[in-house]
């Protein structure tokens, strides 16, 4: 009989979701799955009402301008939102500062602007513990620096960056500060105003406990984005051009209302559980995992010397093993689901020196993991490490050669 899967790939997507999320998504779509607000009938208004209430609720949750909930715009995911935010901020001749911790959702849009639009970019390395030093960002600022974009929590090594300190620097210099909260929204408290964050990009399917296919950004009142798409808005249809007011300015076509429902239910769940409690549970398991892995010969853990300012995401390798092979063995022999490779964050691996060994094995713990699952995972890594030893000490197996 197959063992139940131990899911440790929550940094890719949180799974499973709370039961109330599944129920509300289905119930809402069945009862109210019409195009929101576009038409005047009651049901359309009801659907639109959930959408608008969610804008307000998330704006408050993220510490944005609660008197301007229209500035929380929905898209498909964080990559989609970054593709609206980054080209919406930067033009030819602008300079942007970002970090080696970024996901490709930031790296690639910036690199395209550098190659094709004459934007200049500086990538700031992280230190040996996995943190970006705010003063390094200060020193990289130039006269034409238009934006600083920082990954709040690394999806590879799990470190949480000093956003408030970087935000203060940006605020003093009048530079737009953008953060990627794909790994942190719903995990740790975020307050855009207190942290001087101008634009916050989020995804819905991770710790916000929503579904895949919804994400977006929240933008402060004093910042504006250039629109780079155009299309249906459901309002003022006679206008030959796209609507300039938020949220329509940055939303295009029919929204993902099933995703809206999921995010709403996710907020309900987070409110009931308390994100501090969920985070404490995940970090307790992360400590257990790191403590266990540290005892295993040949295991190399990255940037986990301290788990202060850390997410429950842990990357490691076993000396002498390709990360992908360890992942396959954990999956097939131990029923542990991890993510191996470069994690869409190639610069992290370049800096760690793991790019040429095909990245690392990432364990990302979620709200529904248990101590027993962590212990089984440690045992799995131990068994693989032991197998590497025995494999080295004997010749390759194989029956006598045969002609075929």
């Amino acid at each position, binding site marked *: 009989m197959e063992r139940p899967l131990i899911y440790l790939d929550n940094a890719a997507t949180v799974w499973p979701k709370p039961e109330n999320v599944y129920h509300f998504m289905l119930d809402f779509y069945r009862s109210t799955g019409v195009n929101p607000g576009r038409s005047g009938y009651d049901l359309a208004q009801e659907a639109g009402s959930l959408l608008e209430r969610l804008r307000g609720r998330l704006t408050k949750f993220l510490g944005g301008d609660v008197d301007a909930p229209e500035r929380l715009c929905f898209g498909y995911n964080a990559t989609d939102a970054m593709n609206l935010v980054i080209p919406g901020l930067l033009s030819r001749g602008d300079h942007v500062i970002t970090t080696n911790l970024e996901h490709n959702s930031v790296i690639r849009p910036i690199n395209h602007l550098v190659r094709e639009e004459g934007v200049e970019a500086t990538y700031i390395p992280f230190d040996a513990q996995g943190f970006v030093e705010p003063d390094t960002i200060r020193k990289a600022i130039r006269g034409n620096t238009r934006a600083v974009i920082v990954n709040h929590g690394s999806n590879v090594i799990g470190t949480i960056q000093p956003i408030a300190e970087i935000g203060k620097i940006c605020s003093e210099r009048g530079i737009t500060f953008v953060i990627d909260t794909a790994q942190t929204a719903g995990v740790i408290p975020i307050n855009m105003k207190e942290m001087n964050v101008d634009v916050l990009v989020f995804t819905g399917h991770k710790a916000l406990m929503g579904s895949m296919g919804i994400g977006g950004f929240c933008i402060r009142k004093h910042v504006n984005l250039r629109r780079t798409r155009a299309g249906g808005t459901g309002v003022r249809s006679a206008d030959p051009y796209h609507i300039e007011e938020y949220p329509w300015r940055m939303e295009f076509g029919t929204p993902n209302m099933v995703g809206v429902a999921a995010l709403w239910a996710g907020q309900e769940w987070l409110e009931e559980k308390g994100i501090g409690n969920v985070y404490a549970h995940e970090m307790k398991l992360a400590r257990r995992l790191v403590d266990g892995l540290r005892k295993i010969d040949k295991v190399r853990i990255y940037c986990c010397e301290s788990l202060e300012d850390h997410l429950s995401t842990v990357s490691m390798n076993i000396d002498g093993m*390709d*990360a*992908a*092979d360890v992942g*396959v*063995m954990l*999956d*097939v*022999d131990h029923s542990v689901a991890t*993510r*191996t*490779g*470069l*994690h*869409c964050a190639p610069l992290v691996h370049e800096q760690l020196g793991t790019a040429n060994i*095909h*990245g690392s094995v990432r364990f990302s713990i979620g709200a529904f993991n248990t101590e027993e699952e962590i212990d089984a995972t440690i045992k799995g890594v131990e068994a693989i490490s032991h*197998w590497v030893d025995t*494999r080295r000490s004997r010749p*390759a*197996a*194989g*029956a*006598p*050669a*045969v002609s*075929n």
Partner: protein
Amino acid sequence: MPIIEIRGHKYEVDEDGFLQSPEAWNDEVACDFATTEGIASLTEDHWKVVRYMRSYWQENNSVPLARKLCKETGFTLQQLYDLFPSGPVNGACKLAGLSKPPSCA
């Protein structure tokens, strides 16, 4: 496309050194590529895996997951690693003339 020569035979390969066209595969390809994988000679066990990979690909136009490969061939994963030192994904795919499955790295 790069061309490599193994034991006097020339093969068109992709950037990872896998056979460019799976249709061009035959037993000789497997024997030739085995030498690039550090496999001195192919055993019945190797052929069992390679044949399964080929038949799966012909039916599904894709490569079986490691879990399925173990189940269908009766080998444990560790036995597969013993047979194909670079792993069932890389090693067995290469010998079976199939493309390297896409991965993050």
